[in-house]
């Protein structure tokens, strides 16, 4: 038995189970903080998946951006708002049931499609050994700043719009501070 393959499979199933369980936990979490915590676990598990897929740079980016920034923003919003109602499920029971059935059906269908399909043969442009030799970050960098330059520059535009939008939306009153402060 090849120990490397075994550990890979072990790590995969471990983190896959963690991801699914944590995602389930998020779906049923009553408190949004716990939901966010579960989602953080999913993100960590996905980072592990990316490492298994030879994309370590994406893995750390995933943790840094999703777990370290996006979810922190969620936590901040939860604290800024401190929502009281932690109700589970939609108001209409029928709707909840329909949603459950169809989400399940969707997952099932996707699994059927994905297991019955056949992946096109690899292009061979970036086999894992080459990526490992050059370094994943370097490969991503080289691609991002040449072939994908336009999306990169557009990203800055997007961020600019986001920051202005968020400022305008969230910051209405200047003087009024009826909430507790820090």
């Amino acid at each position, binding site marked *: 038995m090849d120990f490397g393959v075994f550990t890979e*499979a072990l790590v995969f199933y471990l983190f896959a189970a963690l*991801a*699914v369980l944590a*995602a*389930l936990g*998020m*779906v049923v*979490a009553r408190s*949004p903080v716990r*939901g*966010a915590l579960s*989602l953080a676990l*999913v*993100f960590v598990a*996905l980072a592990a*998946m990316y490492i*298994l*897929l*030879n*994309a370590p740079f994406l893995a750390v*980016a*995933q943790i840094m*951006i*999703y777990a370290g920034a*996006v979810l922190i*923003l*969620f936590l901040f*919003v939860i604290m800024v*708002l401190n*929502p009281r*109602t932690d*109700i589970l*499920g*939609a108001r209409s029971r029928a709707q*909840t049931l329909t*949603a*459950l059935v169809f989400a399940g059906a*969707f*997952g099932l269908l*996707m699994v059927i499609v*994905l297991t019955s399909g056949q992946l*096109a043969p*690899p*292009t061979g442009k*970036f086999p*894992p050994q080459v990526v490992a030799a050059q370094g994943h970050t370097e*490969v991503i960098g080289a*691609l*991002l700043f040449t072939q*994908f330059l336009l*999306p990169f520059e557009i*990203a800055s535009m*997007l*961020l600019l*719009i*986001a920051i202005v*939008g*968020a400022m305008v939306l*969230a910051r*209405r009153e200047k003087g009024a501070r009826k909430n507790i402060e820090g």
Partner: protein
Amino acid sequence: MLTVTHFTVLSAILFSLGALAVLIRRNPLIMFMGIELMLNAVNLAFVAFSRFMENMDGQVFVFIVLTVAAAEVAVGLALVVAIFRARDNVDMDEIDLLKG
């Protein structure tokens, strides 16, 4: 050996769970998290295909999705904050502004 199917099936499951969170939860924050989960599931599929197709485009795409997600969360949560401060309400089933 791990194959692309391992990862894509996981991705499909996570996507369904994310959709479920959007569909059955009333708390907009959790619904939002569901959307993030769906995005991440798609990212996983991207990376998996990219790895097994030996083509980096998918991974660069994930990188861009990361940016989009961040921008989306910033603005989306700003909206949530704005709505909540205006309505003092957390229940998405009481927000029916889409109604014509």
